[in-house]
């Protein structure tokens, strides 16, 4: 589950202070988000700042580009199955 932090990129230390999760765990979670292409990080002085990667939006679109094929195939199969089965 995710929780919204608020406006503005945050450093890991700031993130960890807001939540009941240890700082290394926050770093680990951010790394997973980063590996999934949803978060980018950049160095600002001696801090790493994390922001939602705008290309996460594109990945969302690509996900649906594949997903709707599967969904509509499943819908077609269900629609064409005998009426009795769906009562």
């Amino acid at each position: 589950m995710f929780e919204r932090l608020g406006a503005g990129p945050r450093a890991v230390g700031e993130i960890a202070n807001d939540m009941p999760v240890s700082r290394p765990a926050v770093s680990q979670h951010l790394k997973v988000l980063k590996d999934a292409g949803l978060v980018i990080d950049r160095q600002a002085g001696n801090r790493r700042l994390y922001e939602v990667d705008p290309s996460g939006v594109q990945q969302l679109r690509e996900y649906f580009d594949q997903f709707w094929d599967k969904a509509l195939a499943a819908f077609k199969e269900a629609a064409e199955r005998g009426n009795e089965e769906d009562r």
Partner: protein
Amino acid sequence: MTEATMDTSAVIRDVTVAVPIQRAWDVFTRDFSTWWPSAYSIGTEPMETCVIEPHEGGRWYERSASGAECEWGRVRVYDAPQRLVLTWGIAADWTVEPDESKHSEIEITFTAEGGNATRVELEHRGFERHGTDGAAVREVVSSGGGWGSLLEQYAQATQRAGG
């Protein structure tokens, strides 16, 4: 991250089903749970049922066996049996976005072809609305693997797509 131009154009699909338009509509809406791939759920508990409330302004949500509900979006148009418009309110980081202006939109139209077939067209558009102006940061609150299979599937899907 790459500097490639972002493509957020609409996803457009269609399928023709060999049933009359009313049945096509009913299966899509009333019987949504009977065909929606069960692996594609958002909540942390397995999805038992998924509901499209049959009116404008209605909710589109999944419910687990324990009664926990997770809203996916809203019903913008419910014009049986021809036109359904839903909003998709799960943001790019898989959080529920309460602000409907940040939802993408899914329009599904049903067109009779003869008496016994229906063309169903789907357009999912407005992906750019899920963007954040670059300002918001999401954190992960772990609760025993609350990540869920969805993000893993999502990551796998994007990798398969070469993303």
